């Protein structure tokens, strides 16, 4: 590509970098989008695509590099500056106030006024109708509440809201994650018409099939760098996946050679919670690390929550150690040998204002002390042992958890579940958003855990993690288990393609 200035790009980002403490999230990235183009941005979790788009949205004031919009150099240090520069963001999580009418949501902050006191409702409704027509919702009544319309319509209203600020560049971050396939087609029709109107569209998605359907150009990012940019017509599923995964980081994941005895420690049959997962069957063996893979929203977390009785299932049987078991609550599940490391550390994982000791012992309070007494002596050694094992720094059990870094907090969460002394541990995104060192520590702990003859169910979107740790993977798509990949077959490519529903590339053993 030529490097001459103002070369007809709607968006031209040059050598943009953004550093977070400890990591370079975006590293010297050049990213260009033409007018009237749908440009897909791809990469695994943590590749830096969201950070790059956040730079564009004006959420950081300390990025480096230059950004040209329509050939004019712009500084994007606040969301207002980004909006003024013509950038519209459609976020994954809807940012609409659900109990408020559509037109008020659409025109938030700029409702037309009759005079100093009153809002010109007629004008507002007319303006809202106009915006809705642009996203194919011309017949929707703008005065009803957002909570009354479907998820898909809400997503379209969100786009209409962004269009209201007359952007030149529209960024859509996983807009289809909550939509059914017909709704996706409706969305695509809108995207095509917006493209015809000359908008430059950046489209972020994990679904490979969508990229081939809607995008003109695709840029792949990996580890904060732009790997490649190419017209969609010149790439294939395989080449995209290869670029996203890049050189396998196999060296980082020491080979894991646990002997798996045939003994079955857990089995679910016909496990169903209507609307979340259906007729799920799988089993787990002693010393095994089993991955449940699938895209976000495929029902992984819901299965885990049901296994430990946080949620109730509608039908199905759970066998633990060969016996049919029914836990009444999570406490009983823990006593029965099942632990669940939840994905949201801050909300349900750790009591942040309390000490490390309080947190590490929170699952096993009943085991320490006699009768109703809680003795603080005996378990001191246990807490110290667990936090040393997890290399928590500083290794002070009396320190408050919220004074630790994110990576160390995650290690403390892992220590808590190691201290719980369960035989089967379900790990839900155990290394999301942590640095490489903490990741390594947690992976080592998982391996040691499995080598002790205990078993792990791993739910992770981090594909190298699944490849490096797991003995077997079951593939979950839209709440159904569609197949199983044995250890030999687990590669990042096979997992990506299986989860995306590109059958044929790997032989999935149908259950």
């Amino acid at each position, binding site marked *: 590509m030529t490097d001459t200035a103002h070369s007809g790009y709607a968006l031209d980002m040059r050598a943009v970098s953004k550093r977070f*403490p*400890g*990591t*370079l999230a975006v590293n010297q990235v050049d990213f260009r989008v033409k007018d009237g183009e749908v440009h897909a941005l791809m990469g695994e979790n943590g590749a830096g695509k969201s950070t790059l788009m956040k730079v564009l949205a004006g959420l950081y004031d300390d990025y480096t590099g230059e950004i040209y919009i329509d050939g004019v150099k712009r500084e994007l240090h606040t969301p207002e500056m980004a909006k003024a520069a013509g950038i519209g963001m459609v976020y994954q999580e809807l940012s609409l106030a659900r109990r408020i009418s559509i037109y008020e949501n659409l025109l938030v902050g700029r409702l037309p006024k009759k005079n100093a006191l009153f809002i010109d409702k007629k004008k507002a409704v007319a303006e809202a109708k106009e915006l809705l027509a642009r996203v194919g919702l011309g017949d929707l009544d703008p005065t009803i509440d957002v909570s009354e319309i479907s998820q898909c319509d809400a997503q379209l209203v969100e786009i209409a809201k962004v269009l209201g600020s007359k952007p030149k560049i529209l960024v859509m971050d996983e807009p289809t994650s909550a939509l059914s396939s017909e709704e996706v087609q409706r969305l695509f029709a809108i995207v095509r018409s917006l493209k015809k109107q000359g908008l430059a569209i950046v489209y972020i998605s994990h679904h490979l099939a969508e990229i081939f359907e809607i995008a003109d150009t695709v840029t792949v990012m*990996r*580890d904060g*760098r732009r*790997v*490649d940019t190419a017209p969609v017509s010149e790439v294939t599923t395989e080449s995209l996946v290869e*670029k996203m995964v*890049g*050189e396998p*980081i196999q060296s*980082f994941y020491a080979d894991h050679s646990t002997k798996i005895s045939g003994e079955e420690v857990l089995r679910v049959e016909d496990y169903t919670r209507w609307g979340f997962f259906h007729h799920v069957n799988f089993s787990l063996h002693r010393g095994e690390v089993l991955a449940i893979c699938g895209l976000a929203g495929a029902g992984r977390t819901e299965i885990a929550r049901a296994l430990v009785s*946080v949620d109730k299932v509608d039908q199905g049987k759970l066998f633990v150690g060969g016996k049919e078991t029914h836990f009444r*609550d*999570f*406490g*009983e*599940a*823990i*006593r029965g040998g099942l632990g*669940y490391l*939840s994905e949201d550390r801050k*909300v*349900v*994982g*750790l*009591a*942040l*204002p*309390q000490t490390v000791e*309080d947190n590490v*012992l*929170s*699952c096993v*309070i*009943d085991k*320490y*002390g006699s009768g*109703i*007494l*809680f003795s603080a002596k005996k378990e001191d050694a246990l807490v110290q042992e667990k936090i040393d094992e997890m290399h928590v*720094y*500083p290794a002070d059990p009396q*320190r*408050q958890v*919220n*004074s*630790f*870094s994110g*990576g*160390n907090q995650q290690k403390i969460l892992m220590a*808590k579940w190691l201290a*719980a002394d369960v035989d089967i541990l379900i790990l839900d995104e155990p290394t999301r958003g942590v*640095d*490489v*060192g903490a990741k*390594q520590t947690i992976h080592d702990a998982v391996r040691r855990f499995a080598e002790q003859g205990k078993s792990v169910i791993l739910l992770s979107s981090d594909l190298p993690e699944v490849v490096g740790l797991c003995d077997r993977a079951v593939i979950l798509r839209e709440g159904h288990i569609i197949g199983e990949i044995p250890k030999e077959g687990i590669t990042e490519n096979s997992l990506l393609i299986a989860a995306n529903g590109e059958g044929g590339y790997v032989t999935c053993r149908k259950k």
Partner: protein
Amino acid sequence: MSEKIKATPNEPEKVDSRKTEISRFSLIFNKLGIYVVVILLTFLGMIVSKGQFFTAGNIQSILEAVALIGMVSAGLLFVVYAGNMNDMSIPMTMALGGMMTVQCINFGFPVALLVGIATGALIGLINGFMIGKLRANPIIWTWGFNLLLSGIVRVTWGGKQLYADTVARDTDFAQKSAATFYSIARTYLGSFISLMAIVMIVMFLVSWFIHAKTKFGQKLKIIGTSYDVARFSGINCTKMLIITYTICSVCASIGGIFFAALRKTASYENGTGYDFSCLTAVLLGGVLLNGGKGSVVGAFGGVLAYGILNNILSWVGLDTYSKYLVQGIVFLFIVWLNTYSNRKLGKA
């Protein structure tokens, strides 16, 4: 395109020590700072009372006032600590505890006492079930329940005040029970230590033991910090909250029984105002309004400080209405301070 990706070297992690220092400071202050306040207030009391602060009469009146607030606070602190802010049904629990005791005085004093406490336990069980099991909003539910109880009391007794000696039948046994009932608020050990103060101190010792030494106290700490974290640590939150509210209401009913004995009447308005004055005392003692932090030792200091403050206001010669004004200001100040230290602890 095929550049090698190096894993970022594991940099030593930076630790924000400021946060710990702040929280350590506010912890120490929360625990012991209140006793500094108590000592300062005592000096202030000596000045405004012109040296009569330490007379037997004044000590007695401080202890009596403190004892009632203290008994209720010894239970209320668990509700606050568990993250439920306040038990608004305290006034009617106190009133009903006193009224049931007086109503049953004919069965002998011990039985009457047990009935009064059992009434409190029943109210606590209902509160705990509604809040722990059905997840009703703790403030709205207890407030509404207080209203319901007050309705029940007025319908049952028609708004009458109950006097133990008139309720008691004209037998020796019943009259003796009534006399015993009155005497519990008027028994002194030595020259000025009242039985009420001793009961309160014993209740605080029990609270301290439950809070600091038992598994229940340890679990309550996690629940108070975050209900969801507790749930996802396998703690039976429903059971814990039912126990918490039962402890609180039992303490309130004991307070109510002594209140009725002290005033010689049991009526529906006996506990009025105790919901907020006890909360003020508990918060003064450094228990966080949002739960999870605080100690029984601190709460005891809060009760002392609140009692002495009220005593000083009397010495200054404030009338009841002006007292309300000062109490309101103190309450708002304490809530502000509480929210402030909450923010410092990174919770609010």
